[in-house]
């Protein structure tokens, strides 16, 4: 996978999150994993179709996902990761990936489309992406740990 493909996603993440109530978006590090990785908590799946295709996933542990949703809902208490909280984080995934498509167009990768988000919620699960290698971008967003998995070819 071409590592340059992550730049539009980094830009999109840094662009969108301040618009939805976050102040400090820090990229911690980037790692490379195979097509299969473990996840705990919440994993938002968004498929990408076009001249490049694959998937972008956004993962958080359950507590982080609740804090993230709470922040998006202007500090409203989120005791359970319920339908409203699910909708909030899924909308964030949608906005980040739609913005990433715009960023891709700026570097000449046009015509990308994204699918609606599907969320997996569970502990000790594994995800297998349709690519040989996945790039994982580790972010800290107002102290909340968020992982973005990029599997595009």
């Amino acid at each position: 996978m071409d590592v340059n493909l992550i730049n539009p996603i980094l830009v999109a993440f840094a662009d969108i999150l301040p618009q939805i109530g976050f102040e400090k978006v820090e990229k911690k590090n980037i790692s490379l994993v195979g097509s299969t990785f473990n996840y705990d908590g919440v994993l938002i799946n968004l498929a990408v179709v076009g001249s490049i295709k694959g998937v972008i996933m956004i993962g958080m542990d359950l507590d982080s996902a609740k804090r993230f949703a709470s922040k998006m809902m202007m500090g409203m208490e989120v005791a359970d990761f319920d339908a409203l909280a699910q909708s909030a984080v899924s909308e964030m995934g949608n906005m980040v990936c739609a913005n990433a498509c715009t960023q891709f167009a700026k570097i000449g990768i046009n015509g990308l489309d994204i699918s609606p988000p599907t969320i997996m919620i569970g502990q000790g699960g594994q995800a297998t992406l349709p690519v040989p290698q996945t790039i994982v971008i580790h972010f800290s967003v107002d102290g909340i740990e968020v992982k973005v998995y990029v599997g595009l070819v």
Partner: protein
Amino acid sequence: MSIKVMVVDDSPFSRMMIGEALSEGGYEVVGEADSLDSLIETYNNCKPDVVTMDIAMPGADGFECSRELRLNDPKAKIILVSSMKDEESEAEAKRIGVSGYVQKPVDGETLIKVIKNVMSPDSLFEQLMERGLETFKEALAQNVTRMAKTPVTFTTIENCDTPYMSQGITTVIGIIGQSSGSMIMDLSAESAEKIAEGILRRPPKNREEVLAMVAELANIIAGIACSMLNKKDKAFALRVSPPSLFHGNDAEIVSPSVKIQKSLAQTEFGSIFLGVGFKKGSMLWM
């Protein structure tokens, strides 16, 4: 009251051909323009419901004209009608907010269908909601029967709003098109192993082989179902993403922005959950 159409094209011959196709379809051509010069004035005077727009014109091209038109009236419904139709021009059209795209030479029936869909975009979505799950069920039944040599029957899942818990292996395939959506296929590891054995005619060598079979089966079902739907109406313009697999636990699966229609396929190897959902779109490409 008939739908009012304005035709923008620098070629008098094309304007005549498009005009005739529209008249035959019962539509009224209320205005014509051959360039940006007369475009806005004519549009404001004749107040059409839809504008057909050529791309290659001397001076300002169809994209520039569309941009100007949308600045003048952000609700303007524009259908590009051009011999040019590639990835770049489609992307540009999407950025501008064009509603539809028909390739020249214009087939009257196609143009009428696109105009109808542009005027009532919900009807295409409703057709998809009506036919979507049944088509995916047909594709699943055909291919599981063909590949694993087992008959398939379906049972309805009554409570559609209850969150669905994975049986073990979940495949999610994104669907892109006039309406975007998702297909979710879920089955237990035991059922997957038995189906893999049915297909391979030998026990699967390892878990990876089972997972690869599940991903490929889902890929085939989604691809065939979308092709079947596109054959019924190519305005659906559905395409599928490669599959994502989730496994190893009993995760809850939710699609907050899409209402997933669900069904349970019963086979001698166990049950296969099938969920299909779409959300409304507004782009019509032919």
